[in-house]
């Protein structure tokens, strides 16, 4: 573990009441890396992701992002969050705003851009995710795949240095998953640093620099995808990957 890593998670533990949901989780990422957290439901991977932008509070350990301690009580979480984009499983688009309104809200109100600048940036990001023809659509008028792409554009509009994806395709009908993964592939190609929780193993395998397998709040195993998928070092990892594979 070196100090010049972009993101260093060290021995992070978290409890919900008496129940410990994360046990000394550690991993690190370089700038431009894609790390994928996998594991059965309830393994703590989404909670781990949320600890990185403090939507969940870890009680122990350290998360250093770009030289700053994320878990420090003195940290301004609003500043942290404008630098860390997040994409949600349930999209969580602002239901009262159009696609452009959703994407422009952060730049306008958080970054302080003018109305016109924020709008311009929103349109640019929506074009980037392939929604140039849906600027004025409300979330309820969009398909799930389109909504999630708006969600990605909304996060991108803040020009974050790290993107968190919390099961971005799990709520989608199978035929809509591809369009979202395609956008994510594009981000990988552009060198975006991404921490992704997903069950899309083929995506993980194709783009991840490292895969972290969590079970019961523990890091069971981590490593490059080829190693993890071809020669899992732990029996639990192998069983999980087999189970997932049989569902595909």
């Amino acid at each position, binding site marked *: 573990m070196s100090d010049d890593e972009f993101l260093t998670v060290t021995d992070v533990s978290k409890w919900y009441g008496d129940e410990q949901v994360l046990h000394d989780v550690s991993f690190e990422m370089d700038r431009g890396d894609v790390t994928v957290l996998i594991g059965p439901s309830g393994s703590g991977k989404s909670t781990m992701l949320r600890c990185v932008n403090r939507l969940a509070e870890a009680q122990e350990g350290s998360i250093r992002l770009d030289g700053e301690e994320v878990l420090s009580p003195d940290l301004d979480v609003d500043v942290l969050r404008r630098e860390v984009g997040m994409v949600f499983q349930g999209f969580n688009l*602002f239901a009262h705003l159009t696609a452009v309104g959703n994407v422009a809200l952060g730049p306008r109100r*958080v970054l302080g851009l003018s109305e016109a600048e924020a709008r311009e940036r929103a349109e640019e990001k929506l074009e980037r995710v392939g929604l140039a023809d849906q600027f004025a659509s409300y979330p309820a008028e969009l398909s799930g795949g389109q909504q999630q792409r708006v969600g990605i554009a909304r996060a991108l509009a803040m020009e974050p240095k790290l993107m968190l994806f919390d099961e971005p395709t799990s709520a989608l009908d199978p035929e809509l998953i591809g369009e979202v993964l395609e956008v994510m592939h594009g981000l990988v190609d552009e060198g975006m640093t991404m921490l992704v929780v997903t069950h899309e193993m083929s995506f993980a395998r194709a783009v991840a620099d490292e895969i972290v397998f969590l079970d019961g709040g523990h890091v069971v195993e981590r490593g490059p995808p080829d190693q993890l998928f071809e020669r899992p070092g732990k029996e639990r990892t192998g069983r999980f990957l087999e189970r997932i594979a049989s569902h595909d």
Partner: protein
Amino acid sequence: MASATRPTTVRERVAESDPSLGRLLLVAAGALFWGWLVVSWLNRWLGGVVVPVGAPLVSPGAVEATVAALPGLAAYAGDARFVVELTPELARGTWLTVVITAVSLVIGFFIAVPLAVARVYGRFSAWLSLMYTELLRGTPLLAQLFVLYYGLNLASYVPGAVSGVFPRDVVWVAILGFTLNGAAYQAEYIRGALESVEEGQITAGRAIGLSKLETIYYVVLPQGLRYAIPSWTNEFVYLIKYSSLAAFITVPELYYRADQVASETFRYTLIFIVTGVTYLALVLTASKLMERVEGAVAIPGLGAEREE
């Protein structure tokens, strides 16, 4: 969650309802009612440009003669004349009823929103807000008005205002009472609506770096207030009718003037039927107005047909 478009909004439902005969009658009655009121008020403020101040817009004698000429209605000609003679007083009283309701409702709204936000998202402030709403909702409105008027003698502190277009001192005491009381009720309606805004909306707002208050202002309120419109309309309607309690602190609004005439003429039944119809017309106007507002601010997929 990944559902396709569901375009059944209020706006579309309003647009679909075709102009039936009943609707046309309602619109005609509304135009007649508000035309009468507005012309009566203007006539009084402008010093009797249409008819002498205090006189009905149409001649009571002519109405009496017309009704007497109608087959089967001749027996009611005297009543018709009396109702027409009553209209100037009713119009005067209705002006105050409208002013008291509108001003209290609007100011109350701006108190109710912070109260509701505090109640849902605050800690200590939630407790304060709860105290306020329970106290104001848990005691009789009339008792509150009496405390303000007789107890605190507020009317003596309010600077005098020109009578006529602008209400007299005591009217401001009534407005204060209805504002404070109505704010508590409005806060309850808005609180319920805020609580029905999905948690994920707040999470998403926080995740792009909006503070808690910014998230409430830019994300929660625009949705919650839309959800609140139907129940908030109830408060509007209640307030129109509750405003009659102002009569008990000598505010010469609709009920007060009706009661004054009734105690002089003893024609209680007729007077309060006509007064009741006037309140009914105000209430119908309010609910139609809010229906329009709801349609105008409707957003596809929001409020009209929420999932869960």
